[in-house]
């Protein structure tokens, strides 16, 4: 059966493409952006989010766990990832809301059933369904079939992609995708490697190639103070985009509200390296794009 690991199906999503939409968030991402707002989306496997601030170490989770994956020692609770089967019993029986399973496997039909519930709103608002992540395209078999079924039902489709996949995969998806939301983070490859953990060469190549076969691409740029909010970077980005058939740009200001999620995942969040860009700064950057003839929006 064609299924995928999904960590959220968000109804009434209005910042991921036009109109009222449902955004399907697929889990797993080849990149590790320093500022990632959804760190729970990165790993391709299910995970347990654990909030030690809420946990009172009552031991109920340990008691109900069918695989004995939980231990409490020296005032510290740990979950053995090898033993845990992510059944979710511990989540149900935690009265303090300290535990959460991230990721659930869905078949294409299950997702279709869920997203088609809001068809009436898509039709009314010229909205539709957006696939996001993580990087949705790494589960291309699933994505392709889902997109094809959505098009059969005449639903507008959008993909929010990092571009960090092979072009062949983008091509397969493009057939059934009405709108690409294509993330462009850093033009300088050294910085890209430093902050994202991979080269941007394929990402940029893919964007160039995609713009030749697809006419509806919005570029999304996260703006992170200290990292990519300088004029030189913006100018380089515009230089690149000028060669391409792209008219719309979204500037997404960095925010630090994901911090608690890193803690719950047991990951380190290097927020000291990043600054939340000011409104003035965002407007200034917006103006630069506007002067160059782009339709720009701050936010999704």
């Amino acid at each position, binding site marked *: 059966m064609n299924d995928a690991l999904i960590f959220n199906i*968000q*109804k*009434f*999503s*209005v*910042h991921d493409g036009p*109109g*009222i939409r449902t*955004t399907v968030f697929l889990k797993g991402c080849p990149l590790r952006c320093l500022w990632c707002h959804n760190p729970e989306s990165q790993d391709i496997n299910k995970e347990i989010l654990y909030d030690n601030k809420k946990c009172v170490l009552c031991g*109920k989770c340990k008691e109900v766990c069918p695989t004995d994956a939980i231990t409490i020692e020296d005032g510290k609770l740990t979950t053995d990832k090898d033993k845990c089967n992510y059944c979710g019993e511990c989540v*149900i*029986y*935690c*009265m303090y*809301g300290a535990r959460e399973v991230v990721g659930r496997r869905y078949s294409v039909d299950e997702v279709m059933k869920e997203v088609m*519930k*809001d068809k*009436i*709103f898509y*039709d*009314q*608002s010229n*909205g539709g369904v957006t696939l996001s992540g993580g990087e949705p395209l790494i589960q291309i078999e699933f994505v392709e079939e889902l997109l094809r079924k959505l098009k059969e039902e005449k639903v507008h489709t959008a993909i929010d992609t990092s571009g960090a996949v092979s072009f062949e995969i983008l091509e397969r998806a493009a057939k059934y995708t009405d709108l690409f939301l294509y993330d462009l983070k850093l033009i300088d490859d050294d910085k890209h490697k430093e902050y994202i953990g991979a080269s941007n060469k394929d990402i940029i190549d893919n964007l160039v190639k995609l713009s030749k076969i697809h006419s509806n691409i919005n570029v999304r740029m996260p703006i992170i103070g200290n990292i990519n909010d300088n004029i030189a970077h913006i100018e380089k980005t515009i230089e690149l985009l000028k060669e391409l058939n792209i008219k719309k740009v979204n500037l997404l200001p960095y925010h630090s509200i994901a911090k608690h999620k890193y803690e719950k995942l047991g990951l380190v969040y290097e927020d000291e390296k990043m600054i939340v860009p000011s409104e003035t700064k965002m407007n200034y950057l917006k103006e630069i794009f506007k002067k160059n003839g782009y339709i720009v929006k701050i936010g999704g």
Partner: protein
Amino acid sequence: MRGYTERTKILRQESVTTQPSVSLERALLETEFYQKNYGNIEIPVLRALNFKNLMEKRKLYIGEHELIVGEKSEGPQVVPTFPELCAHTVEDMTVMDSRTYISFKVNDKDKEVQAEKIIPYWKGKSTRDKILESMTPEWKDCYAAGMFTEFMEQRAPGHTVADGKIYQKGFLDFKKEIEEEIDKLDFLNDKDAYDKKAQLEGMAISCDAIMIYGQRYAAYARELAEKEKNPQRKEELLWIADNCDVVPANKPETFAQALQMYWFVHIGTTTELNTWDAFSPGKIDQYLHPFYKNEVADGSMNYDKARELLECFWIKFNNQPAPPKVGITLKESATYTDFANINTGGIDPITGENGVNEVSYIILDTMDEMKLLQPSSNVQVSEKNPDDFVKRAVEISRKGWGQPAFYNTEELIQELLNAGKTLEDARYGGSSGCVETGCHGREAYVLTGYLNVPKIFEITINNGFDHYTNKKIGLETGNPEDFKSYDELKEAFFKQLEYFINVKIEGNNVIEKIFEKYMPSTFMSVITNGCKESGKDYNAGGAKYNTRYIQVVGIGTITDCLAAIKYNVFEQNRFSMKEMLAAIDANFVGHEMTRNLVLNHTSKYGNDDDYADDIMLDVFTNVRDRIKGRKAVCGGIYQIDMLPTTCHVYFGSVMTASANGRLAHKPVTDGISPEKGADTNGPTAVIKSCAKMDHTSTGGTLLNQKFAPSSIAGEEGLVNVSSLIRAYFNMKGHHIQFNVIDRDVLLDAQKNPDEYKDLIVRVAGYSDHFNNLEKALQDEIIDRTEQAFN
């Protein structure tokens, strides 16, 4: 200061800053009149002569800058009392004078008058006394326990709305029609001819009464003009006098006279009796448009003039707080708002085509500028209406004070057709009060009281016992611990439901007869189709259509309670019924795990999840079918509404904890909204869940949605909210309204009320000042799930 012109700025300011107070003028005139005349005259004639006496003798008021004249009492924010319905005790008056919320000043001298003249005469004679004397012990037990409320306990039936006839005919015309009906009476063959004659005579006298009132205003305006030094004002006063020469005796000739005509009718209706929901102009953009068009064509009218007149008109509504309520009646409707409701947009009732016209847009601008509690300024949205009309209405609504609310024209019409009205009449359909549906100008649709459905379930799981009054008030349907299946539980619940509905309707039947006999509404009967022709009163089933509503409260709470037990006890065996009952008894103290399971890990209504929504449908259908279609004693049939006003707070306050994890004394759900915090899938899921019930088989449903302002900003926000409304209405939703205020702002307002005197929020089918709401209701509004657009 708000106001399109200097004049409306001043008038509005006066309206919003004057402390409401009580006047005994009406009570005294009426008591003296009754002392002289009661027993000598047929009741309908007596009531009409009493009305005429009031209209002849009461003081007149023309405010310094007013263009539309007439007040319910001696001036803005002064209210009359209605001792024939409810003769307040001196203690009642002390309470209303000193209470923090919804207070009315009563001076000591008036309290003396009340004690010496008013109370002694009306004791045992007021309808309130008559009602309380006539009710059975079972009814009284239920009433004390908060199983239901009773609308006619302190006020009179009403709830109805004007149609277009008062703009095409004057009261001279109506009187002539009445006299023709008297001439037609057949004393040889019609056993009721004598009663009909008394009724029709009463109606004719009521026409005289309102015409005398108009003439008095014309004379008074001239008298003031005589003394007026300012030439401009002098001219205005003479213009007012000229208008009052024409209306209400004759049909209005101008836009201004049309407004003055309605206003005289409004004052007449609400002086005659203390009608619930005052009285409403309904589809007034439709009725005003021909006047506007003609006058614009001849150069005597323009946007500015129409706008100023409409603002003056708006302020007149706001000048009339609902007369003071006390006790349970105050709890079910804790507001100054008297629910006069304006339906802008929708369709032209004559052609059935798009009804949005220039006046509709001027009304939207007026409500935006005025930002007043009254009138409840609402819009009807038809699929035939242009998008820019809906967007303009959304633009006002998202400012956060709850107006306008949105009503679905096509669904309203379908409701009325389903209830047996002709298409021609159904096109006059609209809402009044909060969301109640009726055919304007041709239907008596009377709300009779709220029904506490979650509490019926509470009584069921207590085998008939009520913890609030410490008494057995329900049936013995068995110890729930012995129930072997969910179906057994449900069956017991439906038995109790049947029982409490029966007790309520039995009481209604008696109350209806009391009003038929003692409190005919002869003036309202003049302007309601059917009463003249049948020679019967509005309160006696004389209208062309007659509907009695019971308002069902708490569908969200009851659904989640049943889902909690079905899923956790009977299907998953997570815990026993015994544990469920013990947890409820203990208000979940010491049973936190049980609460966690029912609250956080059970399907809830409002998420487009069929598990809970199917239970909602089962309850909805069973409640509806036990009420809908029953015959009312004065003719007509019963129907349900799904609306709460403020009753969900009162109903919650008389309850223990609930199976869904709701704690003791906390509010139950409002309207058809989900339980607070239960709707975690966003507004589209809420709307889908709500649309699963058949709205067209009810007389109206109410849905609250709260948004954070940032989530619906910009042009895209307007389009998305408009789409949300259109989609809900395509699914035959009846009504939706929005609160758009940050939670933080509300919390701050609660702490610093003085800094938020202007803060208006949507409560139920109306808006109110946040400061006027009691703490529990404030909390409740803060807790309504805020739907963020992600």
